[in-house]
Each structure stands twice: as structure tokens, then as C-alpha cells.
């Protein structure tokens, strides 16, 4: 007998010993604050991966958000800023007594050097009117070719984080991450894990937890499970379903914040189906946004009543909300010359109202929302075929003009002021990107965009924003479906977590262990 009954308990004991050893190894003294996020680094350059370092409190920008939404800005490394009378020269004054992690003091000169590289290589500033930058003492002077009122908002973007000359190699590549934040980078694999330690000489409120770790975990369910098990203290970007499940857990609380990202249908206005505002309004009226928000997104508040959510400075509370009225939708289509054929589908000149909607699964709810839209459009007699592909297919087909419609999750919160994205999506032909409306144009809106960029008085700017929002609501060059919530699981072992709708302020700021 090779293995008899006496040997089996020994085998079981061995397995238990191995499992026990694992448990001992799993316990870590001096635990760091662990933040898990879906996004890893695409290299160590803040121009592409700066968000990791700014959100962890390692790198800092001249300007940041006030954390309340609505695009409110507050100084960070800059103590103040002003613009010349001709609106073409900006002067930023950087704070005194700020030191980089390598001991270098923050000055106007080294800030200007860092910004020079950012303006030259940063993709955020491609097509912007920024012309030059120079530093003198504690001052940074930025010149623009045309008035650019959104510049402070652009300088809140993570790619504009300031690093000293020692951070760069001779060829301009990043040698080492050196910032001014309350955490300094201790070690990293350069991709998914970043360990930070508190910076003792920080100029502001110092880190209350000595160590922090950022870990990229692409799978949303794994992030939720890490929060549930206590492996993660802050788990970002959870699905609505996972957030709902975690609400019942005793050791975790869920913070849900509205963010300026919108699920919208991008349309090709060159096509006969979408070439008039009446048809676009009919499609909009066919959408039961409340139903989608309630049943799929688990939050009726996310039903879009206009393009911009309330958290955005571009939200116009005076607009009539987008309504669900299938009967009116049918009437509008008939008014636009569409008649139902024997299959119950609207048709015009022998052509069925039938189009392809392209969407992608990297933003998980999009295909599910597309299915709901398909059935709601079918209800009024419009056939929509869903094509799920890669997100890059949308700009590719936009460029070659073959895009019919696409359901996208558009970020209007790239910087606290959405004017750049609005110009790129709806503005003049030369400024257009590849995600907004195709074939739709409005001279009036283009004029308002130029006017907005040259307006430096908030009251007047708010009036222009209101007018632009009105045009987008009336013309519907894209059809808003729902707004986004950002669900974050926060361990009850920590306190002080504040979430910024623009995800610009560090998650780790002011966070401490609960005693």
C-alpha cells in the first residue's frame, strides 16, 4: 500500500501548513494606504501618466479645483494670477517656501522651464493659443496669441504638473519623478504599482499616513473584492452593481459623486436620418432616460436632462429638460416627411429609418444602454443596429465619414472648464476633433465660443455658457442619454476622503487612519 489511511492526515496537515504560512506572509506591518484604480501608467512621463502622481499627492500643478464641482478653481503652487489689459499676457506668481522632493526651491524660472516642455510636448495644448513662457523671480509669464480665458483651468490638468530640471535627462525625457506634493515617490515598477512615502518638508498640510500605494487593477470586480476584503482602502471607479452590493458591507462605505462625463449619441448629420433638428429631437423624445438610469445605472439622478450634468459649470438650470414622449416623437418624424411602411418602420423615398450605432465595451455599461435604446427606438418605428467594437473605430469612422451614429462616454471634465471639449466637438471645422457631432455646424455657436474665450469676467462668461447650452439643447447635435456617477469604495478604517468630481484633487489629501 503506497498511501494508506495513516498518510492521508499527514498530507492534509501539509496543505494546512502551506495555507497557514500564506496567512502569515499576508499580514503586513506598517501597512500603506492602498488606492486601487483601473488605470496603470503609460510611461513615467507626467505628460501621459501625470494623473497617478497628482491624484496621489506627489506632483502638483499651479492651479487646482476647489473640489466642489462647477469648475471652481483655487491656487495650488501659484499664489495668484492675473492677465494684462490686452488679455494676451498672463502672470502667475508661484508660492514662496515650496521645495521639490530633492530640496530644490520652487521658482519662476524652474516652473517656466517645466511649462515650456509641457506646452511644446503636451497634447492638451496642441492647437491652443499659448505662444511662450518665461520665468523671473517668483513670477511666470505666459503669452498667448489670442485671448485664452480658460488658461488657468488648463493649468489644473495633471499633465501640467511642475517638476524641477533635475527630473529630466539631457534629451528631455523624464529621469525621475520629483514633485512638490505631500507624498514623494519611493519606488515603482513603472506600470501598475507606485509606492509613496510622506514628504517631511511639504509646504502645506502634511500627509497623515506615512506610506501610500497606488495599484492599477483593471478588473472592476477585483477592485470591489479588494475593498470588501480590506486589501484596498480606496477602490475607484466601481460599477453601479458592485457599488450597490458593497453598500451592505460593514467595513466599507460607498461615495458616489456625479462627474462631468456624459453618455451621448453622436450623430452623422450628413445622413438623411439626422440632418434636421426635428428628427434628432424625435429620437431624443423616444428615449426613456429615467428608465435607463433606474434599471441599468441604478441611479435615477443620472438621467440626462441636458448635455451637461449639474456638477459642470456648463449646466444651465434654465433649460427645459429633455423629455420622454414617444407619441410626440412619432408626430415629429411624420412632420419631417417620414411615413411608416408595412413593417412598421418609418421610411422616406423608399429608405427605411435604419442605422448602425457603434459603441464599445471598455466603458462597461455602454452596450447595455445601447440595447435599451434599440428597443426604445423600435417602439416608435426606428430600426437601430448595434455594433460593438473598439473605441478607436469611432474616430476612425468619423474621419472617413462612414460613422452613422455612436454611443460614447464623453468626458467634459478633462479640465474644469469644458470649453476645449465643446470647441473640439461642436466648434469650427478646423478645431474639430473626432468624437463630437459629424456634419453639424452652427456659425452662431462658433461666434459664442470665440466670445467666451475672450471673456474674462465670470458673470459675462456665465451668460455665454448659458447661450451655448441653449443651442446644444435646441439643436441636439449629439443626443445626451445619461450622466455618469463615480462610485468609490472607502474603507471605514480611514477618514477624511474627499472626492473631487474632476478627479484633480488628491484622493489621499487629509486622509488618516481611524483610531
Amino acid at each position, binding site marked *: 500500500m503506497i*498511501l494508506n489511511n495513516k498518510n492521508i492526515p499527514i498530507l492534509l496537515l501539509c496543505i494546512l501548513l502551506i495555507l497557514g504560512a500564506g496567512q502569515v506572509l499576508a499580514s503586513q506591518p506598517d501597512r500603506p494606504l492602498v488606492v486601487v484604480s483601473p488605470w496603470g501608467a503609460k*510611461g513615467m512621463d507626467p505628460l501621459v501618466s501625470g494623473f497617478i502622481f497628482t491624484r496621489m499627492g506627489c506632483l502638483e500643478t499651479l492651479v487646482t479645483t476647489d473640489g466642489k464641482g462647477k469648475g471652481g478653481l483655487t491656487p495650488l503652487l501659484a499664489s495668484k494670477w492675473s492677465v494684462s489689459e490686452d488679455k494676451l499676457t498672463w502672470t502667475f506668481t508661484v508660492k514662496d517656501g515650496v521645495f521639490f522632493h530633492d530640496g530644490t526651491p520652487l521658482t519662476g524660472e524652474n516652473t517656466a522651464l517645466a511649462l515650456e516642455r509641457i506646452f511644446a510636448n503636451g497634447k492638451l495644448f496642441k492647437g491652443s493659443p499659448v505662444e511662450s513662457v518665461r520665468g523671473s523671480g517668483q513670477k511666470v509669464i505666459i503669452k498667448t496669441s489670442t485671448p485664452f480665458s480658460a488658461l488657468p483651468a488648463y493649468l489644473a490638468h495633471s499633465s501640467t504638473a511642475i517638476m524641477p530640471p533635475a527630473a529630466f535627462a539631457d534629451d528631455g525625457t523624464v529621469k525621475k519623478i520629483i514633485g512638490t506634493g505631500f507624498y514623494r515617490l519611493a519606488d515603482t515598477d513603472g506600470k501598475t504599482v507606485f509606492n509613496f512615502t510622506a514628504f517631511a518638508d511639504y509646504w502645506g498640510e502634511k500627509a497623515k499616513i506615512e506610506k501610500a500605494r497606488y495599484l492599477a487593477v483593471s478588473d472592476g470586480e477585483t477592485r470591489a473584492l*479588494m475593498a470588501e476584503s480590506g486589501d484596498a482602502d480606496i477602490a475607484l471607479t466601481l460599477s453601479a452593481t458592485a457599488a450597490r452590493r458593497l453598500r451592505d458591507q460593514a467595513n466599507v462605505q460607498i461615495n458616489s459623486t456625479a462627474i462631468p462625463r456624459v453618455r451621448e449619441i453622436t450623430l452623422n448629420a450628413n445622413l438623411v436620418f439626422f440632418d434636421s433638428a426635428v428628427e434628432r429631437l424625435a429620437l431624443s423624445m423616444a428615449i426613456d432616460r429615467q428608465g435607463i438610469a433606474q434599471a441599468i445605472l441604478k441611479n435615477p439622478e443620472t438621467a440626462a436632462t441636458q448635455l451637461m450634468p449639474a456638477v459642470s459649470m456648463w449646466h444651465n438650470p434654465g433649460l427645459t429638460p429633455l423629455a420622454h414622449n414617444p407619441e410626440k416623437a412619432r408626430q415629429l418624424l411624420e412632420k419631417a416627411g417620414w411615413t411608416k411602411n408595412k413593417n412598421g418602420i418609418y421610411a422616406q423615398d423608399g429608405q427605411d429609418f435604419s442605422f448602425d450605432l457603434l459603441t464599445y465595451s471598455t466603458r462597461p455599461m455602454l452596450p447595455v444602454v445601447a440595447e435599451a435604446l434599440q428597443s426604445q427606438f423600435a417602439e416608435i418605428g426606428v430600426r437601430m443596429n448595434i455594433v460593438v467594437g473598439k473605441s478607436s473605430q469611432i474616430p476612425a469612422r468619423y474621419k472617413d465619414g462612414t460613422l452613422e451614429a455612436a454611443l460614447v462616454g464623453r468626458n467634459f471634465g478633462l479640465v474644469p472648464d469644458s470649453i476645449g471639449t465643446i470647441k473640439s466637438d461642436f466648434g469650427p471645422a478646423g478645431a474639430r476633433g473626432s468624437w463630437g457631432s459629424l456634419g453639424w455646424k452652427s456659425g452662431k455657436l462658433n461666434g459664442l465660443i470665440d466670445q467666451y474665450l475672450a471673456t474674462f469676467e465670470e458673470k459675462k462668461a456665465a451668460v455665454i455658457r448659458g447661450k451655448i447650452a441653449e443651442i446644444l439643447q435646441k439643436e441636439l447635435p449629439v443626443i445626451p442619454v445619461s450622466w455618469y456617477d463615480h462610485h468609490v469604495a472607502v474603507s471605514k478604517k480611514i477618514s477624511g476622503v474627499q472626492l473631487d468630481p474632476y478627479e484633480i484633487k488628491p484622493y489621499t489629501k487629509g486622509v488618516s487612519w481611524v483610531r
Partner: protein
Amino acid sequence: MGQVVRSICTHLFQGISVALIVATLGFLAVNLTRGDTALDIAIARYSEDLADERVVELVRREEGLDQPLFVQYCQWVGRILTLDLGRSLVSREPVTALLIHHFHYTFLLATAAIAVSLLIALPWGVLCGIYPGGTFDHISSMICSALVSVPQFVIGLLLILALAIRLHWFPVAGFFSPAHLVLPAITLGIGLAAVSSRVIATSLAEVRGSLFYRFGAMKGLSPFRVFTAHGIRNASIPVVTYISVQAAHLLDGVVVVETLFAWPGLGKLLLDSVLARDIPVIQGACLLIGILYVAVNITVDLICLVLDPRRRNRLATS
């Protein structure tokens, strides 16, 4: 000995040729698929929000993607001749460094998974092989079928729920300590053990039914002695071959398990690179995987030569 060296050289030559062909096919497949490589790279590098037409054109120029395909391919071949795999189009890191980083974790996981599978499969398979057709063997067969048919992510999730969430024995995901290796290794190991145990059982049952094995018992050797002297070595030859196939599969990448446990292995790297059309990384990974397959094959051949004197004789007389 000369024959062994010649056999290894042949394997190496074949392996490198296959790896180069696979890398070339990878290059062609990515480039001939509909879509724009520069656009995919721009989105992967700068996100959808910043990847507008101006940025895409910049990326195209920066990375030489405006060059004809033939030129791009020749540049890659030229670099390969100097043992330079180039840089990732997304992160701009040297491909060699990326592959080493990810292979390190793949190797750790594969080794641990095989260790777990052997820990389970050896006693299990031997028991079934000693009593073939018995109740234990029948029940084992059913359990194996069930385990093989359960998807790996289900096993992984169940393990996480039981051992990480309920018992807090192991961390859910990550790669910071040996404890992080346990759950992904068990997830992979359970599935592998289910099949390995059947291979071991069948092989052992066959050996135990063979004339030489029965002759050993008839000439008065104890059952333990017959098993150790004639059973283990003969039964292990197909098992070693099978485990090598499993090892090659593990090195190739187990994307689902790597994604679930946030394990930075080769499979995840390859998947991300394919989605982003990061051609130098795809080509480098194809080369590495090809070379790994050859290495595994050579190792298995050498082990089999050690285990089986008949093979040594055949090689010597060929």
C-alpha cells in the same frame, strides 16, 4: 552526447525560425486588420479624451507609422539582428525590459501553479492508478470532469470569496508578497491537477498491468519496491510530457487569471498590446513565447532521455 547536442541545436533552429515567422505573422495581422495603428496608439497613450486628429498625426510621425509597411518591417528585422526589440509604441519603454518584467511574474505563477497541481495530482492520480475502476477512481473521474468544465474565473472568484473575503487568509489581488501568489496558483493548479491526475492514473494503471511490472512482483519484490523500481519511472514519461504542455500553456499566458488577480504576466501584456496595436511588443512577445516553447520542449526531451534508457539507445543508434 554529440547526438543530444545536435538534437538541441535542431530544436533551437526550428524554434527560432518558428518564432520569427510567428512574429512576422503578428506584424502582418495587426497591420492588415481594419483600423489605424496611430489612432489606437494615441488612444492607449493619451486616452480617448486627448486623442484627436492632431495628436494622431503627431504619433504617426513620431513613431514612424507613416513609413511603408515594408520599411517598418525591415527596420524591425534590422533591430532583431542587433538583438534590439525596439520600444513600446505606447509607453516608449524598451520591449526587452517590458518582456523581462512580465515574464518574471509569468514564470513565478507558472511554477507555483504546476507545483500546486503536482501536490494535488500526484497523490490523487497514484491512488486512482493503484485502484483503477474502483469507487474512488469513478468518483475522482467525475470530480475531474466537473473541475475541468468550471471556468477558471469561477474557481478564482470562489477562492477569493472563501479564502480572502471570509477567512482573510490571503490577499485578493496584487503581487507584493509570496501570499499574493497563492490564490492565482491554486486557481490554475486545480484545473491542471484535475487533468494531470487522470493522466497519472491512466499511465500508472497501464504500467501496473504491463508484463515487466507483474514479473517484478512474481520474482518476489515487495509491492513498494516494484512500484518504486518499475512503476514510477515508466509511468512518469507521459506525465512529464503532459506537464510540459501545461507549462507551455501557462507561459503563453493565462489572461483571465492574470486579470482577475491583477497579476502582471505575459498574457495580460500581450492582450493589452494587441488591443493597442503595440506592434513591437506583440512581435517581441511572439518571439519570446516561441523561444519558451522550444526551451520547454528541449527540457522535456532531456528529462525523457534521462528517464527512458530506450530513447537514449535509439538516439545513440540513429
